[in-house]
């Protein structure tokens, strides 16, 4: 860590923030995936105007049902629009933070490159003072250059993978929410 010089601190911060967001999103999506409510039970809830039990059902479908029941009017035509609104709100919240994760993962290799450049600058500074004779002096800069590049890639590659994973999962959930919306529309 110390051998990497000043660039390691922002790298560490970027990595920390990225992983916190990734873990947060992953847990959120996992909650929406798990304990899903079958669509026929959802329509039963809707008909009986009963809030779904948050201990049994905490998936995406129950979120739609709960959101809709909170706001529903008793006009059938209007209820369809209110359902659309609920689906829109939920789908919008699913994309939160994903862009930030992506940009953090994209920044990490740039920071690594920055560390490489500062390390090479150190090396050439020593070169201009001592000439090529002082291999030990140059080694500090070179190790800084290599370590930051390596760290940047180490942060970026899993970050990009997780970004893709979360994107897929979010799209999946959005489709599921939209499907629930279409299904429930028919039931109202």
């Amino acid at each position, binding site marked *: 860590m110390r051998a990497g010089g000043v660039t390691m601190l922002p790298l560490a911060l970027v990595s920390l923030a990225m992983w916190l967001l990734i873990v947060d999103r992953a847990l959120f999506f996992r909650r929406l995936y798990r304990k899903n409510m079958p669509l026929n039970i959802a329509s039963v809830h809707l008909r009986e105007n009963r809030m779904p039990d948050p201990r049994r059902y905490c998936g995406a479908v129950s979120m739609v049902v709960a959101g809709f029941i909170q706001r529903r009017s008793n006009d059938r035509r209007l209820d369809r629009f*209110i359902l659309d609104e609920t689906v829109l709100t939920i789908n919008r919240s699913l994309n939160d933070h994903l862009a*930030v994760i992506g*940009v953090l993962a994209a920044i990490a290799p740039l920071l690594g490159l920055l560390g490489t450049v500062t390390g090479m600058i150190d090396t050439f500074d020593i070169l201009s003072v001592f000439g090529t004779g002082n291999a030990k002096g140059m080694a500090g800069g070179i190790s800084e250059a290599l370590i930051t590049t390596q760290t940047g890639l180490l942060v970026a590659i899993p970050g990009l993978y997780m970004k893709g994973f979360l994107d897929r999962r979010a799209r999946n959930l959005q489709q599921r929410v939209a499907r629930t919306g279409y299904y429930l529309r028919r039931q109202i």
Partner: protein
Amino acid sequence: MKKIVFSRFPVLLMVIAMALPAAAGDMRELQIQAQEARQTLIRDAAAEKAAAEAAAAESRARIMKDRVSLEAAIAALESANRSLEKTVDTMDAEYRQLVDREGQLSEKLTRTDSMINELVGVIRVNAKDVDGLITQNLQSAMGGTPPSFLQAVAQESRFPGMDDVRALARGLLDQIETTSEVAMQKGTIIDRAGRDVDADVLLLGPFTAAYRIGDETGFCNYSAAGRKLYALSRLPTGRMQNHLERYMDGESDVVPMDISRGGALRQLTHELKLWEQVPKGGPIVWPILLILAVGILIVIERIIFLVRKHLDADGLVRTIESHCLKEDWPACETVCDRHANIPVARVVKAGLTCCDMQREEMENALQEAILREIPPMERFLSTLGMLAAIAPLMGLLGTVTGMIDTFHVITLHGTGDPRLMSGGISEALVTTMLGLTVAIPLMLSQTLLSRAVDKKIGEMEEKAVALVNIIHKSRGKR
């Protein structure tokens, strides 16, 4: 020889006498006269002979006497000669002995001489070493004996006597003693402005010196030539200063020191801060900085805009709903007018003005109102995204121009001196670095801002649908 002359003289006379009568006329008289003359002559000759013989005897006696004395003298001289020869012989022998001895002694002398020379050489080398040690030691800047005697010895201007050797040993021991010390004392150093000032000086053995003047804390370098400590032109980092200060106050027992005797500290002076590197990046740096400035302005403007246009839309819709169910339309409109400059409220108001219409027409009116609100919210965001995309490209451009410079230098001067190439390389690296440092925050803030705008737009759409539903709900009750 004399004797022979005397004996031949009468014979000659007789020959002359016998010859004379042959020439004479009167032979008789002449004979008598001749007889008489001959007798006188014989007498004279006899007398002369006697006298001569006496003289001869006398001279013979004298000669004899002389001879005897001479012989005695000779004998004496010969004996003297013999004794002298004997003396000469003995002296000769003595001389040979002495030559032998001299040979031995000079051999011994050369041996001793070479030994002494060797010894002096060793002492001089050691004196030079100790002298170097003392002058290089930064502790000698804070008092201590001046090592002049060592220089005299080392520079071969003086024969190192026993006193010098003792002084050398003493100096060396003193060095050992002082270099093991960590001392804090008051002393004079040359500060960063080049003036002599009094400061608290912390000496860490022979390695590092630190100073404190007022609340300025930093490291000192030592110049052996002037025997002076001078403050480094650049202060160390705040963390290092804290460490030093706490060590000086005795609160901590950890202190940063430079065991390379100044090498690391010199490196500290060469270290460049970020803004000092900026001018090294060449002309491409300025457009990148311009992008940064414009980007920051846009981000600030957008944040202010979004914060000012923020409203608790859920609360607003709830209030409207309660008024709607009572069919109190003027109250609804006053609620919306209270937030006249906020998009959600404007959209809701647009919905309220056409509350008598059919559902589709209301939806159209609301859609129109939303579309009217979107452009000011998204203003500048695409510019910001473009700036975030351009910044690293500018950095890349700088990299390429820097590399072109480097290769120009290589074609001109070859690869012999890496220092010549480092100008282009540092340009390349600095622009890349700046491009990235500008691009990363711009990219991040562009994403966050457009996310926020998207959220607002979604909120408006949602509230529009909710409003239509509320209005129809209240109509249904009627």
